[in-house]
């Protein structure tokens, strides 16, 4: 096999934002604010240009040979265990870097306007550039260790940016929550790494890294026996990073950070790292039907539960946060049923429209003097034309209305959930239900915010204005992408060619082979004859979900725009209990509080602190050793008396011991 082509631009894609972060972080105070903003944007713009160049170069290659590598330096080499600093870009990586740098660039531009009056402007951009560096490391790493470095790096930046306004305790607490919950996931990730090393190391020849993706791919036979364990351990990491049940609870709280952060990190890029990881490791997942089934089930349940919570939230960003959790559930479910390409497709379109929605909400919050409660908004349509129009595009896209981007990707997932070997009617049904809820809560959000009468106080109302150009231009670009971004995956049944799936096919080659192998046995001859029937089926399902989404939108608009009393009636129905359950997010936080945090706290307080720490450590070890040291010191000081005479005696004594010991010993 010939070695893959080299592309040294990859290292610059990764390093440029790091360089800029270092400059801004170390010397930012001496640089004018304008220059900091420009530098930060340029440090994402240049990688974007390089990413496009890389993408173009990849398109010029034969589909199966589409791999560019850049080995930078050896890094860790302890015996057989080794990991190098090296980057690789295949079609999947190309999609990811385009999304990360593209959306990242727009959000950087937007942030110049949004953060313009913040005293932490420079710190913000240093963190934001650092995040882009870590995220690009994550997606371009050619081995799991470097990927993990990026994985932890984005986690760190997420923590720093959630708690960006750390003067308020609530924000700092949200940052901590995100960090700690992610630790649980990282524990799984680390265990998976250990398992990989333990499984592969005995069988590798010198010079092969057990963590390089190429090695993993070429030693699949060895991994077969541990594929289920590996898949589930990695999935624990995925559940933390991509906010899946049971670890999703940090993401809604993460909205405490500045809105561009919510858009970039907690919607478009970082939270999708888990989905990327599963797609990257698709060849391991397909070896374990059990792991796949669990992944698919968790994704489906997350999609539905999060969407239902989104129905009852009043904070505009909280609604979008639960919507993000729900959409991530879709992507995870897609990976679980074996439709990795569909998952990545949704990842991309979601990055467009969710970034748009978050930035739009940021524009609204900006105009509303920091107010986030939708109940006191309304009627913004007239005063914020651009925000209103682009937000409408985002809403249609996420609801899955043809021909907006969300329609193509969501429909692809629903169809694959129905038709893939690992899927089934139950997955389709759950996804279908969640799609309706999505349309409904988005219509509610849109109606409460932009339509009807303004319900804000006079003071706030007088201040409402359209946002500056640096904020609206990114909105417009994202709106265009939310419209046309899905067209590259125009499905076959509508006369398209689904370029997106074809593009990613080489990456998921192994997957399609295995699935074809499994499915092939009972469907060998039926494929061709069933083709027409399947297209009709697909068409029908797509039509149904389109109608269903339109219905959800219409109902949401009608209830919250025309019949507020009806909404109020729902809220009070059945004694208000269903609403209260949803508004309080099924009391999951409270459940964790009671089941994990309180016992842990009690254990820490009563036993670890009062008894172990105060008693054993402070009492026995610290004070005890202090006493022991004092006694030893006093004794030894007797010897250390400064008299040469005495020192000489010590030498003589030692010499005597030496000679006697050495001569007497046989």
């Amino acid at each position: 096999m010939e070695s893959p082509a080299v592309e040294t631009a990859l290292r610059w894609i990764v390093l440029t934002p790091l360089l800029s972060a270092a400059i801004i972080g170390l010397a930012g105070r001496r640089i004018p604010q304008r220059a900091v903003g420009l530098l930060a944007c340029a440090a994402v713009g240049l990688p974007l240009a390089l990413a496009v160049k890389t993408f173009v170069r990849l398109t010029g290659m034969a589909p199966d040979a589409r791999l560019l590598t850049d080995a930078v330096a050896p890094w860790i080499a302890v015996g057989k265990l080794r990991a190098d600093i090296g980057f690789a870009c295949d079609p999947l990586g190309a999609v990811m870097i385009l999304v990360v740098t593209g959306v990242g660039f727009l959000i950087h531009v937007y942030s110049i306007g949004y953060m313009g009056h913040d005293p932490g402007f420079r710190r913000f951009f240093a963190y934001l550039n650092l995040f882009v560096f870590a995220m690009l490391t994550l997606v371009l790493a050619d081995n799991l260790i470097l990927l993990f470095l990026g994985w932890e790096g984005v986690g760190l930046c997420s923590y720093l940016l959630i708690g960006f306004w750390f003067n308020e305790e609530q924000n700092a607490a949200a940052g901590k929550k995100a960090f700690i919950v992610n630790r649980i996931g990282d524990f799984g990730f680390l265990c998976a790494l250990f398992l990989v090393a333990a499984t592969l190391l005995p069988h590798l020849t010198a010079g092969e890294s057990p963590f390089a993706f190429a090695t993993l791919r070429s030693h699949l036979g060895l991994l077969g026996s541990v594929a289920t364990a590996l898949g589930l351990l990695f999935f624990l990491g995925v559940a933390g990073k991509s906010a899946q049940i049971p670890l999703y609870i940090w993401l809604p709280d993460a909205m405490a950070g500045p809105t561009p952060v919510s858009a970039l990190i907690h919607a478009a890029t970082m939270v999708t790292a888990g989905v990327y990881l599963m797609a990257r490791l698709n060849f391991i997942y397909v070896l374990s039907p059990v792991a796949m089934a669990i992944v698919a089930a968790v994704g489906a349940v997350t999609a539905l539960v999060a969407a239902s919570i989104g129905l009852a939230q009043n904070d505009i960003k909280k609604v979008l946060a639960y919507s993000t959790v729900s959409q991530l559930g879709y992507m995870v479910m897609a990976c679980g049923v074996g439709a990795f390409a569909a998952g990545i497709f949704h990842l991309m379109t979601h990055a467009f429209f969710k970034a748009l929605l978050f930035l739009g909400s940021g524009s609204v919050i900006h105009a509303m003097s920091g107010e986030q409660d939708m109940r006191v908004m309304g009627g913004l349509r007239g005063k914020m034309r651009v925000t209103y129009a682009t937000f409408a595009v985002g809403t249609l896209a996420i609801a899955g209305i043809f021909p907006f981007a969300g329609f193509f990707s969501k429909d692809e997932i629903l169809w694959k959930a129905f038709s893939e070997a690992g899927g089934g009617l139950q997955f389709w049904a759950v996804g279908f239900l969640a799609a309706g809820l999505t349309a409904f809560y988005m219509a509610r959000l849109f109606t409460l915010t932009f339509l009807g009468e303004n319900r804000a106080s006079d003071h706030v109302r007088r201040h409402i204005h359209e946002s500056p150009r640096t904020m609206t231009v990114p909105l417009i670009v994202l709106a265009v992408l939310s419209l046309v971004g899905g067209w590259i995956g125009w499905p076959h049944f509508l006369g398209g060619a689904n370029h997106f799936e074809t593009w990613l096919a080489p990456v998921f080659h192994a997957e399609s082979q295995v699935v074809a192998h499994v499915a092939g046995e009972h469907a060998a001859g039926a494929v061709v004859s069933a083709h027409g029937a399947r297209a009709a089926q697909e068409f029908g399902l797509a039509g149904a979900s389109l109608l269903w989404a339109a219905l959800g939108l219409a109902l949401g608009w009608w209830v919250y725009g025309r019949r507020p009393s009806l909404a109020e009636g729902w809220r009070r129905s059945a004694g208000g209990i269903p609403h209260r359950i949803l508004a309080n997010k099924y009391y999951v936080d409270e459940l964790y509080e009671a089941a994990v945090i309180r016992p842990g706290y009690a254990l820490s307080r009563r036993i670890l602190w009062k008894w172990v720490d105060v008693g054993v450590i402070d009492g026995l070890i610290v004070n005890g050793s202090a006493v022991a040291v004092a006694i030893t010191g006093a004794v030894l000081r007797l010897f250390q008396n400064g008299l040469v005479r005495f020192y000489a005696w010590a030498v003589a004594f030692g010499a005597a011991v030496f000679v006697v010991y050495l001569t007497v010993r046989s």
Partner: protein
Amino acid sequence: MPAVADASLTAQFGALLPYLVVAGGGVLLLLADALSRASRRDHLYLLTVAVLLGALAAQLFGPAPERTALLRGMLGGEAYTQYFNLLFLGIALLTATFATSVFERAARYRTDFYPLLVFATLGMMILAAATDLLTLFLGLETMSLAVYVLVGGQRGSLRASEAGLKYLLLGAFASAFLLFGMGLVYGWAGGTGYADIADGLRGAGGNLLLLRAGLGLMLVAFAFKIAIVPFHMWTPDVYDGAASFVTGYMATGVKAAAFAALLRFCQLALPELGGFWWPLLAVLAVVTMIVANLVALAQDGIKRMLAWSSVAHAGYLMLGVLALLATGRQGLAATVGPASGGAVLFYLVAYSLMNLGAFGVITLLGPDRGEEADRISGYAGLARRQPLVAASLAVCLLSLAGIPPTAGFMAKFYVFGAVVKAGLVPLAIWGVVASLISVYYYLRVIVVMYMQPAGESIHDGRSWETAFATGLLALLILFLGVWPGGLQRLAEVTFRTLAG
């Protein structure tokens, strides 16, 4: 007679050039010192640097080191010699740099510092290269005599004079043991070359009593220079009394030279008798580590604290030597031996870097502070006043404590690893326990520097040369902590050139 052939004198000249440059340079410096006026001492520094750099160049670009015996088996000319000569010359270069920054401000130091430093370095080079008992003694005394004067060489300082005198008296005492031991060994072997001893051991299975007694007495002198309990007692007094840059030179150069000589002696003279004294050394190493670290906990003065720390590090280093000796005993010499020896060589470099860095900072801050300069509490708030210097000192201290990602961590890792591979797991556990204790007193300085506000107005010394040198050392320490592989391989390959 020597197993390796003697090269012709012209061929030897190239290999001997570094020694000649240093020796000639020392004489030249003495003359220059005598002839120049007191106000023109900058020239002496530049001349010293020129001499040391010249010797470095002669060592680096001279003939490739071979396994040849120099001067009829008196000195070894292998890569091992080259490795240590480079280390000693580097240490001397840094010490001269630290010293010159002090001389600019305080007149109480003797001007013959530079020639003495160069002669002491010559002694170290000979000591590390010695393959004969005579050159061993010659090197040891050349080094020691120069260092005695360096320690006592502060005009009008009682503490320095006291320290110098103590060191001289006890050092002479230890040298007497060494000579006596050499005499006995010579009596047994009939020759003074290491090869003679090795030959004698291979041939005779007879009475080893004389040899054993002789080796025991020689070990006393080694243990004294290395500062192993109970031969360490001079260390705190002498380290405390000497000028800080001299202390740094002693803690690194003298110790490294003694270890280099000990390793070479064990490897060349006693290959058949590797396990001869290891149980004794094992007990001493453990006692050294524990006692030194416990006493260091109670020190208020930073130089006394570092003196005890250097005793403790002698204990860790001894563990590496023990691993080597034990593997010889178990017939693992071929496989594990070079790793243990390489670990000691790596450790000595890392240890020199971090101690030089620490004493460099102390030198830098010291002279303007008077008698109280030494108290750890005087470092309060240093991080605010001189952030880069404080950071350098912090890196050195973390490295001394053995915390990653520093050279000190990797050094301990390799040594303890070698000890475990040699099957001496309990010793490795003692080593880890001892270094755990040590973390407390190293970190205390960092806490004081970073977390306590400066009490009264302290006038720190400032010197860009020293600040630059310590910063460079800190970077090197970090570099070796992250990419230790290169030096580790070099150390192991270098050590292999010793093994027969």
